[in-house]
């Protein structure tokens, strides 16, 4: 890659006689190095001052410092945990649980926001008046209301649901009440591995089929009903395995105990409210990004596609959306990152994500603000770097290939 060298550097290398005759500080390479090292020294000095000053101040005030607290027992309960958790577990465990809860709500939020965004972004171009207007109203309403209000709004809506003993009952399997949504849990029995492997076989099969169909179309022009066959494969093979192995699963249904439901899977209202609010809010921005992306594709592309006889639905999915991705992707990147950062609003409703549970409860019990805040911000930084990395890779693929 020659883009890593600047034109100046290239010039220098090709014309050594000129640079040799001047003073070293006039040499752009040396000068660059000098500036860079000065900046480096300044930065190191700056951070050294901050860190040592903080530590001095803390020890002068008698505030404990260091990370030894991570090993001690936390002694308080966390509302929702993806890992088994006891109140005697350490602060490090609390930290991990916080990260996992943040990641979970971020992933759910990103998926839902993307689906919403694409549906409403494309709906903007619908020929149907009503659908077009709904898309505009959605974007304008949810984009213009502060996200914290939306979070509290959905949470308040949840709080209006009946209490546990008067739950909304859907077929004696799903229950909804103010303490959450209770759904049956799938429990594996022996032999379930067979069904899972059948599912994996089906997925591999679909992938191979898709490759084969694409190749065939490129060579012969013949199309293959790929969607229908894939669905049939994905459902059919695991279903056959399921019947063959005698259904090695059962459902664990939630049932009402003295206070609450036991068994099944519980989805707490704090999670639902947060995921709802974040995806609807971010979805509105993504819809705008999608609209901008589609509008950036020249009209000539649609006309050309029509003239080769593509169906309207195919024009969208094969011609317009792929080309618009290069405009949409960079915007998606920042929307995803804001969604992750906005999860910290959970502290308003008590969803136990990193900021609430670690930089909130744990910080208060331990009191070591500097260490805990530092750890917390490193995690948000890291999550967003991962998103950035993935989206940049994706962007590279979507970019115009020009020579």
């Amino acid at each position, binding site marked *: 890659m020659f883009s890593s060298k600047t034109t100046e550097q290239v010039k220098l290398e090709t014309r050594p006689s000129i640079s040799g005759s001047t003073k070293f500080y006039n040499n752009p390479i040396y000068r660059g190095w000098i500036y860079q090292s000065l900046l480096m020294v300044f930065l190191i000095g700056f951070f050294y001052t901050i860190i040592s000053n903080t530590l001095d101040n803390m020890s002068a*005030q008698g505030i404990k410092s260091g990370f030894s607290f991570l090993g001690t027992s936390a002694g308080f309960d966390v509302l929702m945990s993806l890992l088994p958790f006891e109140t005697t577990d350490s602060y490090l465990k609390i930290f991990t649980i916080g990260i996992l809860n943040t990641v979970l709500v971020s992933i759910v939020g990103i998926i839902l926001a993307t689906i919403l965004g694409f549906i409403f972004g494309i709906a903007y171009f619908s020929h149907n008046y009503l659908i077009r207007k709904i898309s505009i109203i959605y974007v304008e309403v949810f984009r213009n209301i502060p996200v914290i209000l939306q979070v509290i709004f959905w949470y308040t809506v949840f709080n209006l649901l009946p209490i546990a003993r008067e739950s909304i009952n859907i077929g004696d399997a799903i229950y909804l009440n103010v303490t959450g949504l209770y759904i049956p849990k799938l429990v594996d029995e022996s032999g379930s591995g067979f069904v899972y492997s059948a599912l994996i076989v089906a997925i591999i099969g679909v992938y191979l089929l898709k490759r084969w169909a694409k190749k065939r179309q490129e060579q012969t022009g013949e199309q293959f009903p790929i969607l229908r066959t894939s669905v049939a494969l994905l459902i059919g093979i695991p279903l056959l395995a399921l019947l063959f192995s005698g259904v090695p699963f059962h459902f664990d249904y939630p049932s009402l105990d003295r206070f*609450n439901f036991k068994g099944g899977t519980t989805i707490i209202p704090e999670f639902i409210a947060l995921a709802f609010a974040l995806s609807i809010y971010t979805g509105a921005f993504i819809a705008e990004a999608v609209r901008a992306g589609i509008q950036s594709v020249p009209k000539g592309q649609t006309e050309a596609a029509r003239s080769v006889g593509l169906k309207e639905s195919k024009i969208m999915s094969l011609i317009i959306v792929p080309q618009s991705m290069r405009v949409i992707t960079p915007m998606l990147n920042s929307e995803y990152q804001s969604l992750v950062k906005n999860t910290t*609003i959970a502290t308003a409703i008590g969803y136990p994500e990193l900021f609430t549970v670690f930089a909130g409860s744990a910080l208060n019990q331990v009191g070591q603000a500097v260490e805990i805040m530092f750890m917390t911000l490193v995690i948000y930084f890291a999550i967003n770097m991962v998103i950035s990395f993935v989206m940049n890779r994706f962007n590279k693929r979507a970019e115009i290939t020009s020579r």
Partner: protein
Amino acid sequence: MKIKNLVMTVAAAGLIFSAQSSVAGDTLASIKKKDSVTCGVSTGLAGFSQKDEKGAWSGLDVDVCRSVAAAVLGDATKVQFKPLTAKERFLALQSGEVDILSRNTTWTHTRDTSLGLNFAGVIYYDGAGFMVSKKLGVKSATELDGANACIQAGTSTELAIADYFRENSMKYKAITFDTSDQTRAGFESGRCDFLVSDQSQLYSLRIGLKDPSSAVVLPEVISKEPLGPVVRQNDDQWFNIVKWVVNASIEGEFQGVTSANATDLKANGKPGQKRLLGSEGDLGEKLGLSADWAYQVIKQVGNYSESFERNVGQDSPLKISRGLNAQWNKGGILYSPAMR
């Protein structure tokens, strides 16, 4: 939320950038210079620190701030109140944003030893307890296995309840909220089956319910929660002042000095009363204050009994009886060290 984050950021920045001297510095001198005491209180808790419609603060915790202002500046109104959530309070004190933290804060070993803070005494002996909805028909906390608990985040109650349920091999789910208003709202909506908090707070939260008779406070008291004012470590003079202002108010009640008779007793009282009120001896001077420091406290704010009855006792809607918080010779454990 924005403002809250700002408070945290400013406080953290204070820790990072301030030079040593300004944080650990001379609190008394800086208070005299700005002519007011900055006091961290709660965001609103009936009886302890609450704001009325006119914006005036009152409560047991607020009276501590007023007493300190009376002793130091001779004027109980020279206080600036800063409402803080449980999560913000210690950082605000550490960073020097407030001079005293008087916010129904439990004196614990960890807080006293690892936060760079000192507890200057106890103004209310409390203990964590439970409030449940009457409809559940629960008579004792031991019947709460599997229930959801509403708790205020960052409190010592959060730890006390975990211990209690573990001791009794019961399970619970903690639903935490930032302020006591949110905690009460969560309890009212049915999000949790019971609310756990200091007993004194339970009574004031119950009064705030739409239907106070729909909830009952269970008899169990599961922890020690001695509440008192907190100051920064490494400023012994300021620590002494706050400690002895608290004691002066308790001693005032013990000696029978009230806001009504203080002026009279200052001139004509018994030796002990005169020493307390500053017409004899040099107690004020030893603290770096004027001779009539305790006189100003009792004259302007009242003794402990007056403050208690006015804010949480029989003259208040809470109607809490003195219990543990009575003088040691009247069945309580309130005891001021000797004023001499």
